[in-house]
């Protein structure tokens, strides 16, 4: 399956590869309590079925922090970071956690990336927590995405701490 806006699908695949079990496999794709990708056991993608929580960033966010049972994660901070932040690391997060972004500050999540390493972003030279992401594809970008984001003044960033056991 190809997605025009691929960020959540990319992160969902990473979480799945990291051991996340599907939730409520096969039920209504719009259910906020489901998180799955069903390839129907075939290599063809035309009949694939996947939950909205798999492919839409704001739905993945609410699944993780609100609707998953048992709960799979929580907001790492009480309030979001501004898109202008120069903090090298987001508080209470570690490699493997996920970072959500609201570009226009309307409290609706628009984008998600995954925290993959600590080090130096090869493009910006910024050091700290690095994320990988799709659409736009970036490898080891500084977690704030500030050197790439012309909407940083309205952006809010929500780091999410994933539970290791649930």
């Amino acid at each position, binding site marked *: 399956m190809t997605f025009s806006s691929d960020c959540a699908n990319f992160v969902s695949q990473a979480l799945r590869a990291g051991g996340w079990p599907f939730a409520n496999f096969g039920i209504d794709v719009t259910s906020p309590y489901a998180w799955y990708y069903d390839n129907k056991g075939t290599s063809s993608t035309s009949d694939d079925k996947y939950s909205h929580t798999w492919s839409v960033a704001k739905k993945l966010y609410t699944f993780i922090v609100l609707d998953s049972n048992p709960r799979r994660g929580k907001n790492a901070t009480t309030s979001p970071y501004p898109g202008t932040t120069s903090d090298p690391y987001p508080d209470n997060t570690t490699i493997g956690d996920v970072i959500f972004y609201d570009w226009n*500050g*309307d409290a609706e999540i*628009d984008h998600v990336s995954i925290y993959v390493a600590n080090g130096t972003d090869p493009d910006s030279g910024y050091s700290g927590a690095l994320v990988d*992401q799709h659409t736009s594809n970036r490898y080891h970008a500084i977690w704030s995405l500030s050197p*790439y984001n*012309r909407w940083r003044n*309205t952006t*809010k960033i929500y780091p999410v701490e994933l539970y290791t056991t649930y």
Partner: protein
Amino acid sequence: MLTKNKLFTIVVLIVLVVSAFTFIQAKAPNEEEKGDIAKVIKKAAVLADEIYIQAKKHYKDRASAENKATIIENGKKALYEVFTDELAQRLYKSWVEDQFTNAVEGPDQIDSGVNSIEFKDLSISGNEAHVTVVLEKYITDRITKEGKKYIDRMQGKDIIKATLVKIDGKWKISEFTVEPDLDPEHIIQPE
């Protein structure tokens, strides 16, 4: 016979002129509307940046609390001019008030603007418009590298989808989403 031909020609000419006039009348408001909508979207695109730049200057100048209050009040006014009351209310904190917290440790931004706006989709039905545009926006920072000062201009094309409603003859944005291109161009020059 000649009179008949003349009459026919005159009638045809009148029909053509009336048709052309009607066509121009039908097209002209759309172009005008498009221009008005483009202006509103461009204003929205740089609104928070303008407040941020003023907030940054406020701290540099160690200006008074009164100065801060004026910037916030003007920013709020600008916000309500561009967005509907409902959306402006939702965006107020993040677009206006928060710029003063962002500016404390944020980049030394000195400028922002729009290079171009390209309409991908525009439909107007009465007092409501739905629009998708590709907007090339830039922001300019003053940066320091190895002790030297530079001007860093970041520019790229973002997709904006918006719904606008006409209130008292003015277009205002009631829904607004941004998909930034996170692979921008940086033009860095010595200051």
